[in-house]
């Protein structure tokens, strides 16, 4: 039963990432916007193919160890490229031109690259990319720390902007629909942060690593949250909100 819940959570995560990511990439073809390209590609690579590929060999138990190893390696590359694209998105959209943000972006990306490359070079045949036991374990933790930092940054910026737009809406400016989009993206990235924490806990806390069922359930539940919040954030609804780029003096506050 728990395995089934875990599987459904994972499928929801992967499917939502692929569907929303592809939709945004199609949007990027039309708008030629870099932010759309970054986040769409990130979702497809990391949320879709990378996450799916990281788990596929675990489900496909008859797969040859060498084939599983290749799939793990390809998935890891897709994941790390996807994570990097997200970091670029956060830096570029929220803090472009800011010195401290540039330093944070560079440091996080270097750590992520080091973790990803180290993981790839030290993962042994027969080891799972998500739960290695040899030297790859240390590199996984480096990668997880970088992922935690990048996605936590995304989460903080999103919630901050949601709060700013809600305050603007109270005086008749800002766009409530866009505020909700920032909020749901904050929920999504927070859930992803918790998935990294969950994975790290399984690596670092003996009592948890000896009982992985709980972490599987937690990851599954977080997968559902990611899927739901991602869809809420970026799946367009029937009605559109007017662009509040300009406003006239004396306009009534938004509902």
């Amino acid at each position, binding site marked *: 039963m728990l395995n089934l819940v875990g599987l459904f959570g994972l499928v929801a995560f992967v499917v939502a990432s692929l569907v929303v990511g592809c939709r*945004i990439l199609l*949007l990027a073809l039309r708008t030629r916007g870099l932010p*759309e390209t970054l986040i769409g590609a990130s979702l497809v690579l990391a949320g879709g193919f990378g996450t799916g590929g990281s788990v596929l060999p675990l489900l496909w138990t008859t797969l040859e160890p060498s084939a599983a190893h290749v799939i793990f390696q390809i998935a890891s590359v897709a994941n790390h490229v996807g994570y990097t694209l997200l970091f670029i998105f956060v830096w570029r959209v929220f803090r472009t031109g800011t010195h401290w943000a540039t330093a944070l972006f560079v440091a996080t990306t270097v750590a992520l690259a080091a973790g990803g490359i180290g993981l790839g070079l030290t993962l042994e045949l027969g080891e799972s990319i998500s739960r290695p036991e040899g030297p790859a374990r240390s590199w996984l933790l480096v990668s997880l720390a970088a992922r935690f930092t990048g996605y936590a940054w995304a989460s903080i910026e999103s919630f901050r*902007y949601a709060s700013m737009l809600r*305050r*603007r809406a109270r005086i008749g*400016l800002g*766009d409530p629909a866009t505020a909700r*989009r920032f909020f749901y993206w904050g929920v999504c990235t927070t859930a992803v942060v918790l998935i990294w924490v969950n994975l790290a806990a399984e690596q670092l806390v003996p009592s948890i690593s000896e009982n992985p069922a709980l972490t599987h359930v937690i990851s599954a539940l977080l997968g559902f949250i990611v899927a739901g919040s991602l869809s809420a954030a970026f799946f367009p609804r029937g009605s559109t909100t007017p662009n509040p*780029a300009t406003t006239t003096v004396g306009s009534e506050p938004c509902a």
Partner: protein
Amino acid sequence: MPDSTLFDETAERLERVTSLDRLEARGTLRIALKQAGFDPKHIRANELVVLLERVLPQELTARGIGDADSVVQRLVASLPTTGNGESNESPESVFRRLGGDG
């Protein structure tokens, strides 16, 4: 007029038309901006007009400035009326596009 100096110029005018000193004028304006969810570096003139009319009066009154409405009118009258378009790369603009409202 670049929006990045709009805050500075408005704060200077506020200092001139009230009894607030430089720090008090900048602080009062900064508090009003924060309450309304704006960053001093990125607010546009048309947004500042609404903020000045709807948020600043109570801040001025709280600081003992009489005739806050007259002060606000003078500040609004000096703001530019052009260059109010939203940047395509602002976070709001990006997230609006991502949701299909672009």
